[in-house]
């Protein structure tokens, strides 16, 4: 029996159950949620529901700020969000400052990596959350290396065909082909702003020099930082070389109960 006859035989045998057994079904375009940052949405096409999204990068590149922005955006639309915090690192004050409705955030505080992965599986199995975030950013490299690809594959299948967006925060991308989108963040610049007022220069202890100004260290405020984001991998729209600029601003700084504003 030649191949065409064999194919016809199989098709006729399975015709009742599968209309076209040799044709791959085209996956439907995934539903997208916004990152809360329009430029990043342009570069990545948004974060896909029903898929894994990795946000990776070194320290102080805005990973957590971006994640909280995504969660706040989803919560503002009335969706429920979950954050599985593998290192118990979330600062609820930061989340509230990012505009997050904390009553719509389920926070799972873990102390071990296994707890975090198990919790993620249980949450995805339960379903119903708009965004589930797995924060592995603080996990040491030796532990991160223990996560096998099978785990990511399992999580990918758990989130598949659901309306949940699973976001994984980590230092280096480890999800391989299981990820629908991987965004890498790179450090940009740090913005220090001088506080308005006159200060005695140089004679004071703790003097910091920046941008040609010589002021005491307590005359400076950390007003934010910027970073750059690019999509390393995207199943929807991959635009190599395109980068989005992200900036994270400090909400307010309080000194002895007084709110100070920084010079622009």
């Amino acid at each position, binding site marked *: 029996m030649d191949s065409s006859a064999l194919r016809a035989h199989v098709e006729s045998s399975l015709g009742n159950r599968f209309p076209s057994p040799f044709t791959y079904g085209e996956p439907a375009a995934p539903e997208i949620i916004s990152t809360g*940052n*329009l*430029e990043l949405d342009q570069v990545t096409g948004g974060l896909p529901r029903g898929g894994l999204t990795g946000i990776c990068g070194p*320290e*102080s*590149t*805005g990973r*957590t*700020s971006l994640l*909280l*922005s995504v969660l706040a955006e989803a919560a*503002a*639309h*009335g969706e*429920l969000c979950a954050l599985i915090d593998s290192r*118990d690192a*979330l*600062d*609820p*004050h*930061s*989340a*509230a400052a*990012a505009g997050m*409705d*904390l009553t*719509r955030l*389920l*926070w799972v*505080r*873990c*102390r071990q990596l296994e707890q975090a992965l198990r*919790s993620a599986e*249980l949450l995805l*199995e*339960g*379903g*119903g959350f708009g965004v589930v975030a797995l924060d592995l*950013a*603080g996990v040491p490299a030796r532990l991160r290396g223990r996560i096998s690809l099978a785990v990511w594959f399992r999580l990918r299948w758990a989130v598949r065909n659901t309306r949940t967006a699973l976001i994984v925060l980590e230092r280096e991308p480890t999800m391989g082909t299981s990820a629908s989108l991987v965004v890498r963040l790179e*450090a940009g610049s*740090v913005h*220090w702003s001088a506080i308005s007022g006159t200060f005695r220069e140089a004679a*004071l*202890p*703790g*003097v*910091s020099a*920046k941008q040609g100004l010589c002021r005491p*260290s*307590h005359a*400076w*405020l*950390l007003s934010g*930082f910027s970073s750059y984001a690019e999509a390393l991998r995207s199943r929807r729209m991959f635009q190599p070389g395109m980068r989005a600029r*992200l*900036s*994270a*601003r400090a909400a307010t700084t309080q*000194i002895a109960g007084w709110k100070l504003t920084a010079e622009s």
Partner: protein
Amino acid sequence: MQFACLHMPDFLLQANLRGEPALLAQPVTLVDGSSSCPRVIAATPKAREAGVAIGMTKTQAAQLAGIRHRSIAQEQSTHAALLDCARSSSPRVEDTAQNTVVIDLEGLEHLLGPPSQIASRLLKHAEDLGLIVHLAFALNPDIAVLAARGFPGVTMIAPGKEAQKLGDLPVTVLHPEPEMLAALDRWGVHRLKELAELPTLPLSERLGQEGVRLQKLACGLHFRALVIAREEDRFEEGWELETPATTLDELNFIFSNLLTRLSKRLAIRSLATQEMRLRLDLAQGMEPEPSLALEEQRRETKEQRQEMRDKRQATRPDSSLVSCLSSLKYERTLRFPSPINNAGLFLKLWRLRLESDLPQAPVMMVHMAAQPARPRALQGGLFAPLAPDPEKLELTLARIAAVVGRENVGSPEVADTHRPHAFRMAAFNPAGPKVPFQAVRNRARTCQRIGKSQWNNFQRPGREQADRKLKIPNSKSQIHTSEILNLGFEILDLKYEIKNLQILNPKSEIQNLKSACTMALRLFRPPLLARVELSSGRLLRLFSSLVRGRITFAAGPWAKSGGWWEEEKWNREEWDVEIRNEKASALYSIYYDRARNEWYVDGEYD
């Protein structure tokens, strides 16, 4: 047919063997262990055939049939179930006796149909609750009671046929006083029709007014008003164990039974529950080691468990002794975010709860109570956001809590204090399908502003949509999705157009509006102890277990102190520093603890 009567024959046996109905067909006797000399108070037909008689001592009966101890808790819960069964059809119910209730059916024909349909409905509910009942319909509540006591199954007594129908019943169905019953027996009066034929005056002279009342009952002429029982929503079920339960598997069967009963009772009353309470009476001092430990349970073989059970059975103390011993209580509560009624879910949740929080002694009695609530009435909306099913969510949360601990699952709440990073964990109980009004209003205003400023630059079809003025409600309270439907349509339209605008003009104002997010701090819990090198008051280098490097820029110190009146006071100087090492630079929040005279890394800006 204005009245129906539900009567449970052999109430004591039914109530005490309700969890194991198969025992009703076995030779089993019920013993009241409250006295010093326990005696038989009820016996199954097979036990009677075997020679067991009411009043025998426990020792005598034990040689002829199996022994079960009387449980008042189970009798009370069975009586409550009987009342629930009656109230499933009518709110006007008389609590006539522990095993008998009378239902006023007046006006229910239009709602529930003819008596035959009401009968099948009542019988179905009774079967669901594990009750074997006799059911009788009559125009008179007392006639209905007598018929239910005397005839098995369903009995319908037509008007005018009462005396004829009841005539063959024994006089014992009237529940006369023992002296009166003896007198009737001496006179040769054994059936109701014989009592009805007696002359009234001589009967009154010999037995008094009570005798006349009984005769009227026998004739079907006595009529009284129904005493409506006060409706108490007490959904409680109890189970006294014959032998102390030492494994979760043993408790699992009991929990399943109790929860199924509670769930069915709630269901036939069209109720659900939002809170369940569990009370376990523990046998204090019976086992020195906590024997409910799962690890031990897994290690034990079946033979070992059987051996232990036999040993306990042999050394089982009397109920009175047990009641003294079981002074230790184990009380737990489960609260649900919304009313649910699902026995399987309840069982899983209690199982997960017990696995993570084991009782420390064998269990002598299980008592379960449900706080009734109206069931959740919710219709999914077209624009309602994605939300988990409350029942599934509760189970998921319980499973996660079993993995990470109950205190580590919930919603964070920012505490109202100046203490750095103070928060508390609250139960995850998200609001219903409501959209926060503030968010809707903010988004609407943003859309409106952007639409007005950018719209004139572009020629697009549907432009007039954006020019439409959005009507924003003034109320600051939350509003339902349905109430903002019209507003939502306009916002969606504008969002679509704004997205297109942004693609056409990527450097527009829209980008600037949303390109910045709020800087977040990742905390180290607990803060990392650090060593900081100083030179002339300047911070030079920082060394800690995770963070180390040269401090390239520092802002601070910002002095913070408070809580001096408490044990956990804080007094510190905070710095924001940029630390550079051989790999990269990063931003950290560090502080100098004045009380401890030490440096700590508080968190990382990310």
